[in-house]
């Protein structure tokens, strides 16, 4: 005896050979679509992340910049302070958008909404969940970045022709921070643990060559600052926005790629450990 079916059964859809399917995350896009539906009905959540870097740009860049001297770049050319700060704000906003999404929102879904339990009862895999969430947090970061880049263009804060590539750089920053943020979230047990996130994010924002060049520090402190992933993101975005592209930027890209990969693998493992017990 079997169930009479009214429509042809569609079993697990055949694997499509997309890069995501090869990762074991062929359905990650359905989770991103779910997040899109949710965001559509709760749009206010989005605005904060957009305005934050804009406020910083106007207070630090334009305001403080009026008192600050021009800043010499690596090749000897000088740029105005606001030109120096704006790309860093772009990089930071990509980081903030991704981290917010990957920590607060994912923690809620994991602990209270039991959303992932519901997903894993279907053919969705932990990899689908990890890739879908990280992809979404990255997309959110990219949306903020695009908006901010438009403001920079309008204010004439870009030079050269490589600035559109900065969008790719911010996507990479979002991916790296989203992945590590999600991995970190799977270890959190209560909302208090989010103070730790701020404890990491704030110093990173302040000391990653965002508000002044690292050259103001003594050598050893410069080495410490280079450990900050946001430093690598900032260097990358600044170079692209100001048309100063160097080979060493490949190193910056590598740091962020490694970070994204490690975060993704850890997040996937931890989801299995937490949910498939």
């Amino acid at each position, binding site marked *: *005896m*079997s*169930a*009479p*079916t*009214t*429509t042809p*059964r*569609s*079993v*697990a*859809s055949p694997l499509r050979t997309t890069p995501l399917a090869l990762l074991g995350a062929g*359905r990650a896009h*359905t*989770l991103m*679509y*779910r997040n899109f*539906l*949710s965001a559509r*009905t*709760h749009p206010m959540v989005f605005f904060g992340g957009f305005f934050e870097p804009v406020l910083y740009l106007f207070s630090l860049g334009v305001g403080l910049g009026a008192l600050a001297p021009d800043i010499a770049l690596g090749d000897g050319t000088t740029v105005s302070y606001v030109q120096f700060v704006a790309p860093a704000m772009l990089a930071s906003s990509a980081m903030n958008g991704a981290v917010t999404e990957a920590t607060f929102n994912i923690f809620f879904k994991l602990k209270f*909404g*039991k*959303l992932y*339990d*519901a*997903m*894993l*009862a*279907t*053919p*969705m*895999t932990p990899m689908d969940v990890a890739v879908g969430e990280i992809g979404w947090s990255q997309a959110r970061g990219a949306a903020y970045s695009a908006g901010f880049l438009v403001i920079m263009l309008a204010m004439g804060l870009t030079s050269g022709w490589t600035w559109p590539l900065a969008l790719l750089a911010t996507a990479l920053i979002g991916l790296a921070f989203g992945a590590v943020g999600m991995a970190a979230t799977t270890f959190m047990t209560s909302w208090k643990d989010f103070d730790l996130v701020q404890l990491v994010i704030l110093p990173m924002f302040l000391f990653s060559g965002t508000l002044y060049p690292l050259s103001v520090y003594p050598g050893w402190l410069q080495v410490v600052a280079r450990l900050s992933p946001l430093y690598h993101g900032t260097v990358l975005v600044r170079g692209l926005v100001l048309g100063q592209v160097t080979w060493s930027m490949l190193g910056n890209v590598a740091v962020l790629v490694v970070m994204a990969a490690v975060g993704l693998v850890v997040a996937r493992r931890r989801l299995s450990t937490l*949910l*498939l*017990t």
Partner: protein
Amino acid sequence: MAPPAVVARGLTKRFGDLTAVDGIDVTVAAGETFAFLGANGAGKTSAMRMIATVSPVTDGELSVLGLDPHHDGQVIRSRLGVVPQEDNLDLELTVRENLLVYGLYHGLPRTVIAHRIDDLLAFAQLEDKADAEVDALSGGMKRRLTIARALINEPDLVILDEPTTGLDPQARHVLWDRLHELRSRGVTLLLTTHYMDEAEQLADRLVVMDHGRIIAEGSPTDLIVEHVTREVLEVRFGTARQAESSDRLVALDLPEVESVEQLAERAIVYTRDAEATLDALGDHGLVPRGHLTRRATLEDVFLRLTGRQLVD
């Protein structure tokens, strides 16, 4: 004949030192409604989670829909409907969107999903609420939506973990009605419950679990016949006289009485004829202060098998 929906042999689940499921043997035929009965912590949910392929098997053998959960988990899940103990609906989405995204998680094409959503909304009696936020639904509505969601992939096996816990009587009856309908369509239902009336209402067959083991198995009627009598007489003699009076009752050793369970405030007499037993008690000068004659239920079976100690 389709293969059995579930075959478990020596199925075991351990969490560290704790053995949640202790070597159970279960076979659920296709099309059957099968219940796991047990107190909290008896191992029902752990067994269900293994069958739903979201919990690795520690030991023993398990096949679900003829497939191996370890290797074919994804295929099995595409043919399962799962209704968890606590609703885990997506509270940020509407009723319709909940069904839509669940269909997408299953990898179904949108046209198929759209068609099924209308049917499922009707099935769950939620047509008026299609575009409402899930948060605003009543407990019974949420439960029905969770069941509708579990049916989006037209599953061969539906797993329901305590489907009516926490619902009011009306909502429970509506839900039973829906489950009966699924049953008559030939869907295999696997449910856990600690409501005996629910198991009696719904299950073709059931197992009683206690401390991770199966301690009884059969149809509700078989279990009643096997473990208790058809009728039950409950008698109360008042707190002061209860102990002494029920001792005398036992001493009478009436022919139609099978056994007597002596409790602090009442005695439960398992008898072939409750009225005759009551009359006989009167004849021997044992007139209870209050009495109740009733049909034996699964609850009697359950309490006899697992005892009356509170399980925490």
